[in-house]
């Protein structure tokens, strides 16, 4: 008797969704097993997680914490669709934070524009900063054929040290007792003053962007070129896809959206700039979200809220169960691994040969 792998032909979206649901459920079992082996009651942890989505207050908090992840993941749906392996969302988020904070500081010290123009300016510049930072490795790929995986990864750390330099140096609040913090953003530079809560403006904005992206990818010539490029590089070249242009445009959108995620951190969640702790892992989490959503922008938004809820639950279990935050990372990792495993079972079937 032998196990044999067989390639499946086309599969329906229903089948694909069912596989994802089954494997995500299985990931809770695997994580639960790890918890139990370590002597932690898995039921407690998972119950705390689901409670997060049941109360309005914590759900709103989940949406808020999910915003930077969601914007970055929306960008990744574009990047991955054209087979551009952007692992640099974290760095692009940092650059968005820098641009947004830069506008606020310039305005606070020199008063460049009327107050009401500050927020729009922050939006535009954080998008551009993140976008250009992502376009740099795309440029190297388009012009010289440099694989993007390691450059995008390396640029995360360059951005990380750059943020730390700014916040420990020139951008530190002079009245902040030496703490590495920027000044607190004034109300006109904050997202939570627009409708009372950052999530009230952030989540609808994310859905609007998801709709625009969907339309862009499915119905415009540029979106078509991106999909062709993602399917087969060589074929795309023969089909006359303008590869360089497509890569640059797609990476500008991908990084730009991550940059907007950075904006939501400083102008929505923190209200100032603070040094990132090295292992926040926004970038990785955004990748997991993009995969969980099967690169569908519509699904990326609820998936981001789900992962935002994981972050909230991390704080809750720390306070109530005395478990460290990494317990939540284990759930993230098992969800990640199970989604990838699910992809395998979508493509292949196991058959017993006697």
């Amino acid at each position, binding site marked *: 008797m032998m196990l044999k792998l067989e390639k499946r032909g086309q599969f329906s979206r229903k089948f694909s969704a069912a596989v994802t649901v089954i494997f995500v459920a299985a990931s809770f079992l695997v994580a639960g097993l790890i918890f139990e082996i370590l002597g932690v009651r898995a039921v407690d942890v998972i119950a705390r997680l689901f409670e997060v989505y049941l109360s309005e207050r914590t759900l709103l908090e989940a949406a808020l914490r999910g915003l930077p992840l969601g914007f970055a993941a929306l960008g990744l749906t574009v990047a991955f669709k054209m087979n551009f392996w952007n692992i640099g969302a974290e760095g692009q988020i940092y650059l968005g934070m820098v641009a947004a904070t830069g506008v606020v500081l310039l305005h606070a010290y020199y008063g460049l524009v009327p107050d009401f123009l500050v927020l729009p300016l922050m939006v535009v510049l954080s998008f551009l900063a993140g976008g250009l930072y992502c376009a740099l490795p795309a440029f190297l790929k388009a012009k010289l054929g440099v694989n993007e995986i390691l450059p995008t*990864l390396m640029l995360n750390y*360059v951005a990380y040290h750059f943020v730390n330099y700014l916040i*420990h*140096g020139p951008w530190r609040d002079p009245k902040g007792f030496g703490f590495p913090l920027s000044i607190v953003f004034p109300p006109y530079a904050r997202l939570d003053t627009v409708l009372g809560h950052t999530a009230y403006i952030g989540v609808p904005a994310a859905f609007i962007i998801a709709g625009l992206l969907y339309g862009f990818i499915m119905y415009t010539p540029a979106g078509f070129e991106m999909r062709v490029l993602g399917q087969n590089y060589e074929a795309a070249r023969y089909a006359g896809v303008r590869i360089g242009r497509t890569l640059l445009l797609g990476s500008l959108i991908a990084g730009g959206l991550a940059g907007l995620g950075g904006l939501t951190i400083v102008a929505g969640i923190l209200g100032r700039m603070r040094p990132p702790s090295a292992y926040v892992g926004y970038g990785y989490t955004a990748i997991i979200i993009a995969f969980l959503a099967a690169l569908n922008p519509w699904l990326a938004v609820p998936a981001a809220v789900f992962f935002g809820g994981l972050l909230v639950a991390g704080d809750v279990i720390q306070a109530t169960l005395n478990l460290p935050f990494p317990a939540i990372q284990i759930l993230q990792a098992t969800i990640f691994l199970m989604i990838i495993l699910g992809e395998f079972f979508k493509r292949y079937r196991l058959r017993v040969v006697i």
Partner: protein
Amino acid sequence: MIELVESVLVGAVASGTVFLLASLGETVAERAGVLNLGMEGMMIMGASLSYIFTNALGHGWAITAVLLVGAILGLLHALFTVSLRLNQVVVGLAFTVLGLGLSGLLTSNEIRGRIILALNPEASPAVIASQEAAKLPPIPIPGLVNIPIIGPMIFSHNILVYISLILAGGLWFILFKTSFGLSLRSVGENPSMADALGVNVFLIRYIAMAICGALGSLAGAYLFIGYQPFWVEGMTQGRGFISLALVILATWNPLRAILGAYLFGGVEALQFRLQLVGVAAQLPYFLLMLPYIVTIVTLTLLSAESVRKRIGVPAALGVPYSRE
């Protein structure tokens, strides 16, 4: 001034050994065509296990356990990427997230205490509560350590530093002078050709990943018991990814990895000392960016076809192999 230079050089080797061990493992994997982006996770697992096992059973068991668990993680990675042919980037990142999470959970006070007690029922409460562990003792090599500059720089360290240097030489020999090494490189270069010539592509990739996982975790163990024996969550701080960069800088050559590792280690040691002295407060941040920028520049230079050919970049790197 001479003292500062010497202390930076000694520090360069001390901190560079983390990069050396990890990049040696990664070199083997990448020469066989597997990109292991899970290095960071394997490294932090090694660090956390060496912390727990040293306090429970001592250094010898700690290193044994770390090598074993590292090899298992490597084999699991191979199961996903070699047998199931899943995307190496995604699997690697998942392993990194998993390693960060598991190490944090294992070292949390309650769970760590339970594990230490299970391993060694006689462990004292002070040891169980400790955030530190005994550091590996330095073993200065008699005679050699008295050579000016080079002596203290190379020959005044602990056993893992010497092992890493021997490994670099050994792996270079295996990769470039033995038939096994030739098979391994051919698997990374052109797997279907290697397969046709009777090389077991899958077996070799599994072996390479086991070595990669074991050395990656050993790098983490060195980071903790050999360099900085105070537990901080997420203490690898991207060193696994720096090691990946180093592999490229050393153009997949174990001997060149020594130079690169000490260069990166030197950057770390220098910025640390500059911070202590308080000279040029802003400079360290830019120094820390350097390894990453140098890597991107190297990758760009390597993109030229003529350079790739001459250096021998594994052509099938990152591509799963199937017989279909």
